[in-house]
């Protein structure tokens, strides 16, 4: 590697790596930490609401009863445009129905049990997805940071001429600048395939508002749904005239009979209770990265075909694989644990990267004690703030102001770290009347 890259290229690689890293470090660290946490999204939902009814499976007739009960509970309101039935899975063995206005757990008989209470898990997801900002801005910003991880990965490789020779050299017990450098380089090198995979998939999700909207604007008269239709399928024609609710039981019976190896993860009712309604099933395929295949049914339960996410065009399969590859939910708990470990490692890489820059600045005679203290504040503050929101969830319940708590604790930790450093610096200041002047 060192023979391939001249000293000048390495120097410029280091400079480019530092520049990108410094611009991105704080929010990138937050995205990495929240990303490593949200891998357990389903498990957290179980933790949040331990009294929700759980089941290994649910009978098709019970699902149909549950759908009818939920729609009946919204009588007199504006009809929901979509109704989602989450079917019990190994990670989240609950049946949950979500409409435009509510989400409820149902029991194994199809009766409404309790409202869904997972505000903390949703807060964590929103923190990672969009930094608690409005979706367009937040997702785009997170997508941009995902793309910058790609740039950091490439520049890091260029900046690291002894990448292979030192690949297992981790002098962690030295507890000095060399140890910081080793932690950064070794973890970065070995998590590079993981980092590139999650960064590219994350950037694809996040930059949709840039890439997808540009595609829609130039090729589909600004209709982003039309741009996605060749990939994920199109919504049916709406017809608001009232109609009886669609039959869900025959749909599930058809899936069990014709596709016994496919696990139904969601049943989606589009425009339920109208003549334009149709039913969509998301079926998970074992040992595939795709999140599932869309199976389409008429309101009477007649099978109409699939979209092709599992066996259609390569682009469809690729697009359908992005979510699972990014969130690590394609291989049960072992894969989730691996994602948490590598996600934490990525957080360590970001944190140590900034410390390495600070060390270098100090060696150049430009120590930045307040910036260092602030960075310590960020490094400790983000996980502390997430912990604080969890404590708030357990102590105050589902309605706790998670966003305010998270940002308040983060900012307070950073402020405290800087203030503490200031006090220490003042104490060390030389006396007003130095010795040589006496």
């Amino acid at each position, binding site marked *: 590697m060192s023979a391939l890259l001249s000293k000048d290229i390495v120097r410029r690689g280091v400079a480019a790596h530092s520049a990108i890293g410094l611009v991105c470090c704080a929010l990138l660290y937050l995205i990495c930490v929240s990303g490593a946490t949200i891998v357990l999204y389903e498990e957290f939902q179980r933790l949040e609401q331990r009294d929700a009814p759980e089941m290994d499976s649910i009978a098709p007739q019970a699902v149909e009863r549950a759908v009818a009960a939920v729609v009946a509970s919204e009588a007199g309101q504006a009809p929901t445009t979509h109704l989602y039935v989450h079917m019990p899975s190994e990670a989240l063995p609950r049946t949950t129905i979500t409409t435009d206005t509510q989400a409820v757990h149902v029991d194994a008989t199809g009766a409404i049990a309790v409202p869904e209470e997972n505000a903390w898990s949703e807060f964590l997801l929103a923190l990672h997805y969009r930094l608690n900002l409005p979706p367009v801005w937040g997702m785009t910003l997170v997508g941009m940071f995902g793309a910058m991880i790609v740039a950091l990965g490439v520049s890091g490789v260029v900046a690291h001429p002894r990448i292979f020779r030192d690949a297992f050299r981790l002098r962690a017990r030295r507890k000095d600048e060399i140890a910081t450098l080793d932690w950064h380089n070794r973890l970065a090198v070995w998590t590079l395939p993981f980092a590139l995979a999650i960064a590219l998939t994350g950037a694809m999700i996040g930059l949709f508002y*840039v890439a997808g909207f540009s595609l829609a604007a130039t090729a589909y008269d600004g209709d982003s749904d039309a741009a996605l239709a060749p990939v994920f399928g199109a919504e049916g024609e709406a017809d608001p005239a009232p109609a009886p609710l669609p039959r869900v039981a025959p749909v599930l019976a058809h899936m069990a009979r014709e596709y016994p190896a496919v696990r139904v993860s969601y049943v989606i009712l589009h425009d339920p209770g109208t003549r334009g309604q149709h039913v969509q099933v998301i079926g998970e395929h074992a*040992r595939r990265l795709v999140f599932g295949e869309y199976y389409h049914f008429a309101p009477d339960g007649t099978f109409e075909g699939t979209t092709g996410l599992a066996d259609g065009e390569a682009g469809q399969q690729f697009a359908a694989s992005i979510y699972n590859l990014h969130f690590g939910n394609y291989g049960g708990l072992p894969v989730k644990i691996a994602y948490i470990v590598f996600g934490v490692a990525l957080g360590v890489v970001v944190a140590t990267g900034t410390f390495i820059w600070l060390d270098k600045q100090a060696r150049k005679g430009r120590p930045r004690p307040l910036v260092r203290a602030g960075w310590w504040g960020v490094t400790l503050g983000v996980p502390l703030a997430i912990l604080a929101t969890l404590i708030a969830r357990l102590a105050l319940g589902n309605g706790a102001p998670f966003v305010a708590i998270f940002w308040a604790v983060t900012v307070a930790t950073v402020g405290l770290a800087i203030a503490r450093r200031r006090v220490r610096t003042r104490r060390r200041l030389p006396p007003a009347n130095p010795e040589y002047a006496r």
Partner: protein
Amino acid sequence: MSDGTLWLGCALAAGGVAVLRLSWGRPHRDRGLNALGWAGIAGGTLLAGLSEGAWGVAVAVLCATSAAALLLAHSAVEKPRAARRSAPTVRIAASAARPARPIHGLTTFVLGGPLALAVAVVLALAIRVAAMRWPVAEADGNVMVLALVPLLWPLLAFAMLMTERRRAQFAMLLVPLAGAAVPLLLLGSAA
């Protein structure tokens, strides 16, 4: 293909990492062991891919990375060798450091950030237009745009940061932009 093929692939990929650890830990380069290690990783990933497709590749890569993490964890708890004296902290004279140039930095940020992103979007749209005439399916063309933007932008930004000459940075934006204009103007953006 069976479960056995998948797990053999995973074992080979993880074993390849272990062989590389052995090879790179030696005082002198061992090309045979190096080749064996890389072959283990590549062969194992390929085997897992042949067995279970993209899912198998993802699992094999996770196995290899986990093996590396375990070896690193071992290195982390190892006592550092005391033979070599640690290099004294090198202090670079403050006078040698360049003065801060905020306008220069801001210009570089604008060029490598929003402008490079805009060029990446135009380039991805142009590649789609050209690919659709190849032809590729509409789904493939559209996903190509979504996938290329997050790939082209960071590569372009990195390339721009690797040069210190402003003229070269502008050229890196203008040349792909001109290249992208050809299919977009000839074939139209909706092709």
